């Protein structure tokens, strides 16, 4: 279930090659973290998985069938910002996810169906530690709480793949550690396949069962747009215990990790 396959995927914009020769098989339930320098196509890769962009060439498969070319309920997403709806309270944000999935005509549930959905939303909020904030609006939450809400909202419909676009990039280090514990816990509980972009190498190695490094292996100084980035390292971590971050990666990516995060 929920196995993601890429077969020779390319993404080009006119002459410019952004991503090239992507070949990958990700098994169900893996936690894939993605690192790489700014502008090396990490976000483009995630947008293709999300359906916001389509591959220029190649095949992108979920359980053997091509992914729909638009965002859909089989893929959940948590962005770095703007991931929750500002006009709804915390509980209504999660309830909305259930209502949108179950009521295609009005986007609203009534009566018994609504009560059941409310209970499910409340349970989800308790699971991410937001039970006490159910009636607040997102503007009254901290950055970490907003991301907890975004995660709860994305997971309540049990998507097959969860995409995380630098979800903790804007948070304080202390809060980040809490969020790592949370995401690890919900990932283990739901068995969802996770793809997470991060700028933080230790984060990538601490959370992932597999780290993908995006980089441009070929550069033509006369035509910098001629070659794109691809997966240059594919590091499996599961079952090996804690793995030290390879020194070569640290050297390559450190300037990026310290620069302000604009992907």
């Amino acid at each position, binding site marked *: 279930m929920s196995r993601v396959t890429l077969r020779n995927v390319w993404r080009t914009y006119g002459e410019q090659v952004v991503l090239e020769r992507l070949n990958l098989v990700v098994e169900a339930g893996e936690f894939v973290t993605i690192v790489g320098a700014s502008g090396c196509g990490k976000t483009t890769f995630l947008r293709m998985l999300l359906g916001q962009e389509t591959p220029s060439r190649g095949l992108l498969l979920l359980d053997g069938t091509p992914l729909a070319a638009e965002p*859909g309920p089989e893929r959940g997403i948590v962005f770095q910002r703007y991931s929750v709806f500002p*006009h709804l309270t915390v509980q209504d944000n999660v309830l*909305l996810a259930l209502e949108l999935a179950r009521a295609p*005509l*009005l986007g609203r549930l009534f009566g018994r169906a609504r009560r059941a959905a409310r209970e499910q939303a409340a349970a989800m909020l308790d699971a991410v530690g937001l039970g006490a904030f159910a009636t607040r609006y997102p*503007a009254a939450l901290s950055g970490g709480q907003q991301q907890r809400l975004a995660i709860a909202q994305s997971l309540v419909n049990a998507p097959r793949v969860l995409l995380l676009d630098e979800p903790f990039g804007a948070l304080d280090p202390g809060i980040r550690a809490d969020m790592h514990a949370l995401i690890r816990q919900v990932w283990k509980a739901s068995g969802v396949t996770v793809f997470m972009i991060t700028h933080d190498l230790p984060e990538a190695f601490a959370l992932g069962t597999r780290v993908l490094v995006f980089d441009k292996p070929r550069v033509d100084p006369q035509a910098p747009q001629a070659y794109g980035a691809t997966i240059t390292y594919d590091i499996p971590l599961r079952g090996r215990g804690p793995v030290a971050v390879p020194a070569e990666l640290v050297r390559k990516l450190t300037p990026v990790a310290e620069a302000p995060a604009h992907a």
Partner: protein
Amino acid sequence: MPRLVNRHPDRISRLLLGLLPFLLVLAVYLLASAERLAANPNDKLLPGFAAFGAAIWRMAALPSERSGELLLWADTMASLARLAWGLGISAAIGLVVGIVNGVIPLARAGLSPFVAGLSLIPPMAVLPILFIVFGLGEVSKVALIVIGIAPVIVRDLQARALELPVELIVKAQTLGANTWTLILRVVLPQLLPRLLDALRLSLGGAWLFLIAAEAIAASEGLGYRIFLVRRYLAMDVILPYVAWITLLAFAIDWALRLLSRRAFPWFAASAGGGR
């Protein structure tokens, strides 16, 4: 002595400073009025407060000799009804077309240039057409207000809908929304407070078109009355009417602001309300 840019008035001095221009204008008026009345007790141009009081009493409390109506209230009701129809229809058009244009690229490609072109037509230039098509009744006056402000509201709401972070639109789709439920549950509720903002900004224009239409063809209404009594140089009626219209405009603006704060508490708190 701090520099001027660093000197901030406290609450009381801010209130006094705010009142000062009003009091100054009032004083200048009273002085000029007293001077003219001293030269000619029947002067009509700058009547004194006694004349205002008498005119307001006559318009607001004594039935008109011709129709038996209390003219100020009859005029006010007529004008407010036209204004309400005009604003309501404009808001409905603005909301529907603005959202559709903002959310659905195909609709935007088809309609947006048309709305932009429409909004450039000077509404007063089509007033004769409205009178010819709709006659001299209520419809032409309401239509003028709608033609004047609906395109502005449409364009504003379209821009506001396009300003919604694309992340939210994508997120809703990953939660299972289709185009219709996306509009219903995500876009529409976020645009309602912005519609109130757009209405507040359109109020000035709406009054302008209302009074213009009433001045040209009406049998009652605040604008009609002002232009009617102009023939008799009746400044004692015109000036209180202008003050009354200003007060009404202020009250409507205040009510819309209050409604926005009460009905959409999240709006003031979130980034969208920061404007």
